[in-house]
Each structure stands twice: as C-alpha cells, then as structure tokens.
C-alpha cells in the first residue's frame, strides 16, 4: 500500500499473516474463558456454601436459579412476562437517564474543568447536592416532577452524572500542558479546543467515569422505583423483598447483575473506537506488539 510497506520483506508479512488469524481465534476463546472463569468459580462456591442453607433469607442457590426462569420469563405470552413488563421499561428509563447524564456530565465537566472561576463557583453547591441521599431527594423531586417517568429518569440522570462530571473535570484539568499550549498557539477556537483537545484528551478519564456511572445508573434505577412506582425491575425486587419472597428477590439481584454485565459489554464495544488510540498508544510502548 504505502512505499514503506512495499519495501518490507516477505518474512515480516508472512509472519504477521499467519499470526493474526491464529491470534484472533484463540483470542475469542481466551476472552470467553476469562469472562466466565471466575463467575463459575464463585457460583460454585455460592452453590456449595448454601447447598443446605436453612436460613430463609439466604436460600440455596439451586432454589434461586430454579425461580429465575419462572419469575422473569413466565407469562401467557412473552409480552406478558415480567421481563417485558418490568425489565424493559426499567431499561428504557435507565438508558434515557444515562444518556442525559452523559451529555450533562461531559458538557458541564468540560466547562467546569476549563473555566476555573466557574469551578470555584459551582463546586460547593454541586458537592452539596452530591451528598444528599436519593431516598431523601426523591420526595422533593416528586414535588417538581411528579411521580411519572420523568422523575425516575431525573433521579437516574442526576445520580449517574457525578462520576462522569468529576472524571471529565479532572481529565480536562490534567491535560498535558504542552498539548494545551499547542492548541492555544494555533488559536483553536473555543469549540475546536473542546472538540479536538479536551474531549479526546480527557477521553480515557471520561470513559472511566462513564463506566462508573453505568452501574450507578442501574442502582438508581432501583432506588427510583422504590417510590411511587407501578412497574420496573427495581420495583419487582423491592416488592419481593417486602413480601419475603427471598429466592425471587435474589433472582432479581442476579438479573441486575446480568444487566450490568450486558450493559458493560455493550459499553466496552461502544467505547472501543473512542479509546482505540489510547490502548494502541499504551500497548505500542509496552512490548511493541
């Protein structure tokens, strides 16, 4: 393709040609093994530890797993199952709230990180709100937002905001000064600085924050469904808990965990492109291969 490529002798190309497919095939197997290895071990440990548990709040894993299917996937039709009735609406609110948190967190984070007076002005107030427990906040929110979806989305968005915001702020503050100077010297416009310097430069940290926020969003989804709710995964879990349906409650916890794994997988795929340079950069200097 390029001139440099053309001069590379056959040996190198042959070496890589055979190395690449083998590595990817093995790579897939390997990552699957990695992904399921420890969970299997832990499940086995849980299984053994609770095999003959008498405690009503800590039922045998076998029982929990046995209730998992019926709890979430039984109904007259698929549309009638708890999965569709409860999990999907929750997921919808979760995604909307999370998306809002992303936009707000990154937007405010860049602003606050880049404009020091703004940070000084806003930080105490933000920290104040950050420390207030959602169970106390939600009733206040209900005054303004009612008890519908918007309130729940708001709870998710405001809770998931913080890790993104904080990480964006720190990422922007921690940008390499030489890069900042370069952008200044070439008189990047305000928007150019944001788009071409701050966002990509802080992206490793923003992604870290977004990862954190994802699990927090799930947790807040549950909390938001503890108030004035009629459906939802969190609502179901809380209902099970209140009616002492312990295996069902555990199956809900497992469902939450699975949701977390699924979302984080999607997240990883989605951010792979954004952070390709970063991983490439780190890898290229660690062993060069």
């Amino acid at each position, binding site marked *: 393709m390029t001139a*440099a490529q053309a001069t590379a002798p056959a040996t190198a190309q042959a070496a890589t040609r055979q190395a690449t497919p083998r590595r990817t095939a093995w790579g897939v197997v390997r990552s699957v093994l990695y992904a399921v290895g420890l969970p299997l071990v832990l499940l086995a440990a849980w299984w053994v530890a609770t095999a003959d548990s008498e405690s009503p709040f800590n039922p045998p894993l076998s029982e929990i797993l046995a209730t998992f299917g019926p709890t979430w996937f039984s109904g007259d039709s698929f549309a009638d199952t708890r999965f569709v009735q409860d999990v999907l609406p929750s997921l919808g609110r979760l995604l909307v709230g999370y998306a809002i948190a992303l936009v707000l967190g990154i937007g405010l984070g860049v602003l606050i990180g880049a404009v020091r007076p703004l940070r000084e002005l806003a930080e105490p107030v933000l920290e104040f709100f950050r420390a207030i427990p959602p169970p106390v906040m939600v009733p206040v929110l209900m005054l303004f937002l009612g008890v519908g979806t918007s309130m729940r989305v708001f709870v998710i968005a405001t809770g998931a905001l913080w890790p993104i915001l904080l990480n964006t702020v720190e990422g922007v503050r921690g940008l390499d000064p030489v*890069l900042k100077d370069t952008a200044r*010297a*070439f008189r990047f416009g305000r928007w150019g600085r944001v788009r071409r310097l701050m966002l990509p430069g802080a992206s490793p940290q923003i992604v870290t924050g977004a990862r954190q926020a994802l699990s927090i969003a799930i947790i807040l989804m549950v909390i938001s469904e503890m108030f004035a709710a009629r459906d939802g995964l969190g609502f179901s879990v809380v209902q099970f808990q209140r009616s002492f349906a312990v295996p069902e409650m555990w199956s809900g916890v497992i469902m939450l965990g699975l949701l977390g794994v699924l979302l984080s997988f999607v997240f990883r795929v989605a951010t792979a492109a954004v952070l390709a*340079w970063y991983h490439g950069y780190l890898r290229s200097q660690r062993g060069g291969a």
Partner: protein
Amino acid sequence: MLDVRALNKVYAGRGDPVEAIADLSFQVSDGELVCVVGPSGAGKTTLLRCLAGLLPATSGDVALAGEPVTGPPQGMAVVLQEYGRSLFPWMTVAQNVELPLKEKGVARGERSRLVGEALEAVGLADVGRSYPWQLSGGMQQRVAIARAAAYEPQVLLMDEPFAAVDAQTRFELEDLVRALWKGLGVTVVFVTHDIDEAIYLGERVLVLSARPTVLLEDVRVDLGAERDQLETRGAPEFARLRTHVYELVQQAKLGVRSLADARLTHAG
C-alpha cells in the same frame, strides 16, 4: 515587526521564584530570520513562549506589528521543544498536520494539498496514516515541523526543531526553512543549540547569556541571501562567525553577562 522591550520573566511556582529572563530588548523586522542561541537553561524557550503569547511576561512588553501580544497572535505557528508531547496522540499524523488548517478555516481540498506537501517536504509522505506514537523521535519532530509549515504562518517560532534528526535530514530541513522563509516572507525566530545551524540559517544570531538572561550580542550574519550547505559552510566568514558565536556561548556559560566582559580570542 516583532518588538521586545525590557522583557522580564520570573517563574513563581513551587519553591523559590526563578528569574529566567532578566532584561531583554530586541526587534525582529517583518520577514527577517533570526536565530537564538545560548547555553542550556538560558531562557530561550521562555523567551519563545513569551513571544508566542503562551506565557505572560512578568514585566516588559512584547508587541507584534504594533499590537501588544497577550495571547497567541493571528497567523503564527510554533514548533515547541517538546515535539513528542505537542502531537495529538489520538490523531494520525496527517490529521495532526491538518488540524490547525481546519481551525484556520482552510477549505478541504486545499487542506489535503497542504498536508501532502508538508509531509512530503519533511520526508514523511508515507506515514500519514500512522499515529504519532508509532513514529521514531525524529519522525515526530518532523511531523511538528510539517504542521507548522503547512500552516503557512506569517510568524514562525521554532524551538530546537531539528534536535532529534540525523545530520543529512537536518540539512534538508534547514533548506526547507529557508525556502519557506523566502517563499512566504515569514518572520522566523529560530532557537537552536547548533551554532553552525544558527549561522547558516539566520540573518542575525541573538546570543543569550546564562540565566537570568540578558542579550550578550546581536550578531549580524552577512552571508548573502542565497545559501548553500557546501559553499556557505565553507566560506571564511562562516568560520569566523562560528568561532565568534561559539566563544560567546562558551563565555555565557561561564557566567559572562555582557559583551564587554567576554574574553574572546579575536576582535569581535
């Protein structure tokens, strides 16, 4: 015209304040090529950053075309000493070179022409699609040079831009800078450690004292407008200037702070 008057710069961060530049005054006319030499740690980079509007002076003024420089002025390009860190690692080489052009508002077609030419000129036509961290140090430095060249600035500030390249490439890049300078009529301030280079390139060479910096001598280089790596470097005047500047830097390093105190082996 670039006008530096009674420039003073003190770094007052952690620890004791460090006075990098004591008092500097000089002028660079439009379209002039001035080289700056001085011992390591003299304050050359500090000076360049003040000229670029990247660093506020502690006192004194820097003015470009009569306007005081408070931030990076229009139409200026800089090659920073920390070339490796001045490239955006999330962009390919070509994107790095193209970016300032985008910000400048150059049209797409023109942009890709400029990028292509600049990369070609620094000998990196074939790595446009690599990332900076996949390049050797010298190649990274050349990308930074290409970026500045493609920008077609009116003022070009370069801080030891050829430190990481081999001798042969260096010669070529020197000629590139001279061609650029002549072709576009750019005002160039060029910091270097290589005294030969300073004389070969510059119309004037500013010799700085050690920190806190004052101007030791403003050496005029009369080697004509047309220069050639073999001929110019072989000229007797070149040799004389070289010895002179070399001795000045040597004296500067020893702490001499004015031309009068310098003990030179020849008549200045």
